[in-house]
């Protein structure tokens, strides 16, 4: 009986070891480590998710990415959480997107600025402009040199410029979300047009969105913007972007004309020196041709 008191200690030690194993299982779903053969498997799952997202198959993407993220920590995990967030956004599951972004930030603290931007963007899409602005402002103040700061400030400027027109801004945000989700936002654009607010901005956003896939449609939108809202602050951007689109499309003369028109129309704009330089290069390029 002398050694009886040792039994509780032995039992506690065994329970601790068992518990750790159980903990691992609950976290990873695996009783044994998957790292041995998991590296290739992880990459495969990630690529599956990417592909599904590109194809707009959010369900397939979610399945692949969830499997990957459930596996615990691995080289693809953080990226998978990020992709899952985007996937959830496109599937209009904004709360899930938020959780996924939180996980990204938790796993890789260096992504704090990026995740903050994305989470602010989620709030913007949800119409929570004040919250979004606060997040964006904090990001820009804390990390003004981070690449995300430019996007953050751009979105912040947009929110603050139109903070007095919360309703139209919500429509605009919804339209942008729909575009992001690959859905049609014609209703929102029409609503804005009908209300007669934020039209220039709406046109600019639409043009930018379609410029990659349908340059002609984009050019039409740019032209419309320049014609209908010549005094809008977005008109200058529209002209430059139109010129750039034409330049990419090989319409150098038209592009030059647009750039020169910009010089004439916006003589005090800060983009003037760039445009002048670009014109010079274009002319040189044409001369070479």
């Amino acid at each position, binding site marked *: 009986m002398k050694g009886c008191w040792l039994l509780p200690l032995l039992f506690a030690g065994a329970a601790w070891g068992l518990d750790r194993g159980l903990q691992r299982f609950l976290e990873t779903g695996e009783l044994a480590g998957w790292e041995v053969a998991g590296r290739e498997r992880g990459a495969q799952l990630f690529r599956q998710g990417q592909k599904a997202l590109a194809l707009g198959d959010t369900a397939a993407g979610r399945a692949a990415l969830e499997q990957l993220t459930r596996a615990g920590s691995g080289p693809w995990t953080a990226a998978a959480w990020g992709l899952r967030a985007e996937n959830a956004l496109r599937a209009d599951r904004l709360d899930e997107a938020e959780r996924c972004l939180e996980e990204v930030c938790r796993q890789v603290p260096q992504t704090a600025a990026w995740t903050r931007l994305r989470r602010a963007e989620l709030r913007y899409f949800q119409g929570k402009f004040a919250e979004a602005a606060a997040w964006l*402002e904090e990001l*820009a*103040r804390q990390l*003004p*040199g981070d*690449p995300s*700061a*430019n996007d953050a*400030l*751009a979105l*912040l*400027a947009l929110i*603050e*410029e139109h903070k007095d027109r919360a309703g139209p801004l919500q429509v605009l945000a919804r339209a942008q979300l729909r575009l992001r989700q690959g859905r049609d936002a014609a209703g929102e654009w029409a609503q804005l047009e009908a209300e007669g607010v934020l039209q220039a901005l709406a046109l600019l956003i639409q043009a930018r969105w379609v410029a990659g896939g349908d340059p002609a449609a984009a050019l039409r939108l740019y032209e419309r913007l320049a014609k209908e809202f010549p005094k809008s*602050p977005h008109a200058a951007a529209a002209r430059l972007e139109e010129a750039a689109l034409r330049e990419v499309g090989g319409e150098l003369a038209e592009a030059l004309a647009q750039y020169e028109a910009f010089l004439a129309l916006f003589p*005090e*704009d*800060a*983009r*003037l*020196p*760039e445009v*002048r*330089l670009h014109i010079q290069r274009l002319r040189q390029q044409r001369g070479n041709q």
Partner: protein
Amino acid sequence: MSASPALHAHLLAHLARLRRRALLLLLGEVLALALGLGLLLALVALGLEAWLFVPPPWRAGLGLAGVAIPNLVLGLQLSRRLPSLLSLKALALRVEGRCPQLQQHLISTLELWENPRAASLYSASLLGATLERATRLLAQVEPAQVFATAPLLARLRQLGGAGVVGLLAWLGAGQSLGAALDRCAHPLTAYARPSRTRLALEPGDAEVVKGADLALRLRLAGERPPSARLQWREEASPWQEEELALDADSLRYLFKRVQRPFAYRVEAGEGSTPEYQVRLIEPPVVQRLRLEYHYPAYSGLPVKSDEENGDITGLAGTRVLIELEASQPLAGTELVRGDTLPQPMQVEGARARTELTIARAGHYHLELLDLKQVASRDPIRYAIQVLEDAPPSVALAEPGRDLDLPENLKVGLRVEAADDFGVARLSLVWRINSEAEERRDLPLRPGRQLSLAQTWDLGGLDLLPEDRVFYRVEVFDNDAFAGPKQSATPEYSLRYPSLRELYEEVAQTQEAQQDSLEAWAEQEEQSQKYLEQVRREALRNKELSWEGKKELESALAGQKARAQALEELARQLAETAQKLEQGGLASQELLQKMEEIRRLIAEVATPELQEALSRLQEVAQSPNPEDLAEALKAFNEDHRAFQERLDRTLALLRQIQAEQRLEGAVKRAEELEKRQNQINQAAAQKTPGLAPQERRLEQDTGHLQEDLEKQGGEMGEFDPETARQLWDQAGAMQEQQLAQRMQELAGQLEAQEMSEARRQGESLEGDLKTLSQSMRKMQGEFTARQKKQIGRQLQQALAEVLHLSRRQEDLGRQGASPTAPPPAELAQDQFALLQGADLAAERIGRAAKQTLSLAPELSLSLGQARRSMQQAAQLLGQQDSQVAGVPQAEAMRHLNETALLLRQSLDNLSKSQNPSSFGEAMQKLLGLSEQQAGLNQATQQALGQGLEPGNQGREAGRLAAEQDRLAQALEMLEQQLRGQGGARRRVESIAEEMKSVAEELRQQRLTPQTLAAQQRIMQRMLDASRSIHTQGQEEKRRAESGQDQGYSGPGALPADLGQAYDQLRGAMKRALEGPYPEEYRALIEQYYERVYQDLLGRQEQP
């Protein structure tokens, strides 16, 4: 025979009687002889001794001789003459010899009767007859016949003669004879022969009161030498001496103020005196003197003890208890006032005491008498000084000068009064123009020094423009002895100016300021050109000529003078703003802008510029052109910034002045309407004397019309639309013939045509109302247009900066890419971005000339971005695209910071046009004030409980944490108030004070001062909330009755909660008296109600 025996006995008795007589006469005679002889001999002996100073044997011999000779003579006389008297028969024979008539009867009788045989021989009858006969004959004999007294008398005469001689001798040389007698009385004693000069010195051994004089008297006898030597010494010290001339037989000498015991003697000729001792007697002295002052009750001074000296200094009426302790027990003491009025003191041992009451200045001394009846010497004379109860002093620290009355007709008076013993009363005395004086007492807490802040509301005085109120403050002290004394401040005046006067005055000042600035700006431009030229010349290594150096020095001196003059201009601007504020001529927002401009002007000449200027002045003397060029380069950089700041300030000043003039015009229009309304109301009550008021109104209306036209011309530069509206308004006034109609109304009022006057007045009031409303609307539109235009500029700048930032990011990424374009191309792109940044900076600069809402750090941030871009362009130009990535990232960061600052500026701009932001801030501030009130009470409780040191430390720590929390909350509120300079600074200042109190608490300094600071914080928070609240609110110019609001500094909250409740109620009442709009009045009521309920709740808790 039987009668014969008797007869015989009778005869014998008769003879015996004769014999007795004879014996007495003999003895007397012999004794007189002996005495006379002895006296003469003694005189001779004394004379000899005195003269010869005989030696002892001789002296003894003389003495013996003097005794023996008289005795011998006495013996001889007796022996010779006595026997004849002892025998009866011899006596009978001597009698018969002197008396012949007896014949021999007597002797015969005696023999017969003595012979036994005679009876036998003679018959009895014979015997008897013989006896009878003898007896009869003897009876007939007179004794004097037998024994005469003459010899005795002769001897006695001789004795008397000897006595006379002796007496005369004694009288003539008594001293010598006395000394001789003394020596002769001691015949065997050897005596030295006395000197020829004999000295007697008085007083010999003596006792002298210390410090007193000692008088000596020297008497000389015998030979008198020409001088004497007086010798003295203290204890064992050597003798000192003084030669004294002897002109007489006596001499007086005085030892003055004897301080120590000494011995003395005198020598003169052969004579000398013994050594005499002088001992000192210490007189009584005052060893300790204590004065106890009991001041008059009105002075409020406590009892004071003074042991320093005996001078008495006190107020008239002060009772002084004088106590002394002497060096020795006293028999009596007197206090003598003014040398003549002794006042006995009560003595007890060596102490004495008395009292005196100060009535007038003078002096006193104390006279002591010790038990030996020695009096104190040279008593100290003490002064009695009567302190003047000085008259009170009073000053009006604020305003302390003649003023124009502010718009609200309230004048803040700050009275500083002081009296040496207490101010009892303060009175404000005033008169309007030359009317009778009026007065009223100001509330005060009696004290020696008062600082009373009082708001004097002149609203109830029914003042008219151009009235003057002359006023002063009188102060009375509390002198209950001689009656209150009084002083008064100088008389100041308050003038009730018309709005037009105020505006004209301010406008003139501002025009002068603007002219100065413009002139300086022009001079600065020329100066810059000149300095640049000098720099270029210096760069060409061209040394300046003497004239050139002088010219440069002159230019630099001018530069310095202009920089200094800017400070003066800033001060003038502050005065102008104050004038505007007091006159209610400008809104809070406008005043804030003026304050910002004042700050800008004060900051135009930065310390860096001043330093560069000083450096340049030093180097201007240098012969080395390179140094000069370098210094000029540094200076020109600062100078350019100086020029830009000056330009911006000038532009802003123009802008603000335009806004101010517009606002002034609006207020004047409103005032016209209000005055017309007052006249109309007075006319309805048939008040006389309205015509002059209406005429003044007519004049002011005409002036406003002229000014509107003038302002229309000036406003074109800023806003053509507003300029057009101003002209339109002037035209409308012309069309409505306002001035003419007012003139008519004045005539009607004069003629008492009241019904026409009422109609005309109402019509005019309506038109004036329309005018003021149009003006106010026009001002609002002007402001909105201005802000919209500035906001657009800032939005555009923000978009541009964001574009530049994004492009900068792209360019950096491009440079880092393996497929990057050549660095030269990237350098071109970078340079283009730099130029773009310049354009953005210019745009921001243009906006900065129109608004003060820009964040101050904006130019710094953009400047840093430009520098980084420039550096990146240079590195790219040097083909170093990898290293260029660093400044490119920096540039992007600074551009983003610039974007944030622009956003903040936009926020400032939008908040400045949105008064609702004040409401939110106020609500928060009131909430914090409430928490501060709770904290103050906790502090007070902690103080009141008198906690143990350890517990007090813990409690102080807890209070410090709470105070810190409130300070942080206030700092957050301060952030929300950005763009509201004045309010923000007030809140910032309160937060600073909170931190200071928290620090004190952390150091466990839980004192009444801490609590006072906390009370002050709460008061300031309430004041600030009210101030924030009233910002942007239009203050109406009014002349209505009001109550003065006294304020004598923050008072500590009482310990009992009931009292705290009363104070809060009072605070609420006071706060609600402020000019709050109605929507906030309810909020304030709620706030105080919550505080009250909270306190009530705490009170109910066990």
